[in-house]
């Protein structure tokens, strides 16, 4: 078999003359023609079988590209879900460790501010009424105070009014400092007994509680606003005066009556002692004076 020549013919590598001569030879020699046909069929078969395999490869590419897409989508979905799970897992401890304490802190801060406002409010309610009384009671005392103090008082009064308008809830200071005092009493010439029975300090104010037993059968007593001299010699005029729980600008005492007098002084520290407490009865002389009052914070 002339395989090289057949191969050259089938590959189209012959010149025109060579090809025509070969084709004439094929017509003359049926065996050669049969060999050419068989070789052509084998080459065709190689191509066909090879093409089948190539198409199987193509189908694998198509299938794998589809799975690539699915894998891609699955990967994205997995990342998203994993992110969600991680976020959900982290958010619980983060909430408890970071957010919740923060919220509580903010709330506490807000409550403190509210308490502060309420406290100011309480003070202001008390102060306003007393400042008003003071103004009416004794203009001289007012004039003794400095201009700064007046301004502060005014500002405070304005704030008080605003706070009163805004919030009328009265929140008392839960922990006033109780002050131990040495028992001290005085009896005036009319027989009226003045006894300092209690004291406490709260919000920059010193409050003294006096018990008065009036033994005077002749006349009623009318008192002016009391004053104190602190341990440094500074004079403080009572900014409020209550008699049996009621605010008073002046007060009178009926015969043989036992009353509790509550005096409030604006003083921003707890003095060790008071040099003097002066209570002036308007119609009588001398002033009732109680000296050497020792103050100490009662731990209990």
């Amino acid at each position, binding site marked *: *078999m002339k395989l*090289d020549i057949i191969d050259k013919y*089938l590959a189209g590598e012959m010149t025109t003359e060579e090809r025509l001569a070969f084709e004439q030879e094929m017509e003359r020699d049926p065996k050669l023609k049969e060999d050419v*046909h068989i070789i052509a069929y084998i080459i*065709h078969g190689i191509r066909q079988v090879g*093409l089948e395999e190539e198409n199987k490869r193509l189908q694998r*590419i198509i299938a*794998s*590209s589809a799975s690539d897409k699915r*894998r891609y989508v699955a990967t994205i979905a997995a990342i998203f879900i994993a992110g969600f799970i991680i976020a959900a897992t982290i958010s619980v401890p983060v909430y408890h460790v970071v957010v919740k304490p923060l919220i509580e802190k903010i709330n506490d801060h807000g409550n403190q501010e509210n308490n502060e406002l309420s406290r100011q409010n309480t003070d202001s309610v008390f102060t306003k009424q007393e400042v008003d009384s003071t103004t009416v009671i004794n203009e001289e005392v007012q004039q003794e105070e400095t201009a700064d103090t007046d301004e502060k008082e005014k500002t405070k009064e304005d704030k008080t009014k605003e706070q009163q308008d805004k919030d009328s809830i009265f929140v008392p200071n839960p922990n006033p400092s109780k002050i131990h005092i040495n028992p001290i009493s005085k009896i005036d010439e009319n027989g009226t007994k003045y006894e300092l029975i209690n004291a406490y300090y709260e919000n920059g104010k010193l409050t003294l509680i006096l018990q008065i037993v009036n033994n005077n059968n002749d006349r009623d007593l009318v008192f002016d606003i009391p004053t104190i001299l602190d341990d440094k010699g500074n004079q403080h005029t009572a900014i409020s005066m209550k008699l049996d729980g009621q605010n008073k600008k002046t007060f009178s005492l009926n015969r043989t009556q036992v009353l509790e007098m509550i005096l409030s002084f604006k003083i921003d520290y707890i003095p060790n002692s008071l040099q003097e407490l002066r209570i002036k009865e308007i119609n009588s002389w001398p002033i009732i004076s109680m000296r050497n009052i020792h103050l100490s914070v009662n731990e209990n």
Partner: protein
Amino acid sequence: MIISFKKLRHLRQSALNKEISQIYDEAKPSFINLMQKHFGRLTYQDIEELYDDAVLALYENANNGTLKELTCSITTYLYQIGRNKAIDKLRHEHPEKMVDIEIHDFYPFVDTCWNDDYKNEIRYLIADKVVRLISGSCKKLLDLFFLQETPMKVIASQLGYASADVVKDKKSRCLRKAHAIANENLKKLDEQRSIT
């Protein structure tokens, strides 16, 4: 999206498609050889880039449904894509020069041998049977040569033969063997027919 990957390198590195990765390695030498032979003005880097684009195009066409069935080998398909891209590139870079493309018909006379007679049908069946029996180095060589249209020189380097002439001898021996088996089967069939 995967399809939007610009370079096949990314595709291969990500190992998304093993089949494509395998084809990439298999078809590259033949592609480079053919391109260097027909487009001498292109550099090696240009041809490599065109090859990457061609394999990516194959992947995309398979992926988007444009390519559903092959009528030629994958290597030929890649070469056709590469050839079109090379022509575009050269026309763009050198519009004044006509790109002269040699279009060769591989084994044109194989397809001129068909007749619809009974004997050809028998030949077809026998040749198909014989071809499916071919295996090993013969199958690889004949596939590379007749299906992939790989040049002898490239086959030699790919399959580890000493030279193109060795490949040519081997190809002749393989064809001769296949022809002998087919001929024997045909004779047997003729004898059976003459008996009946």
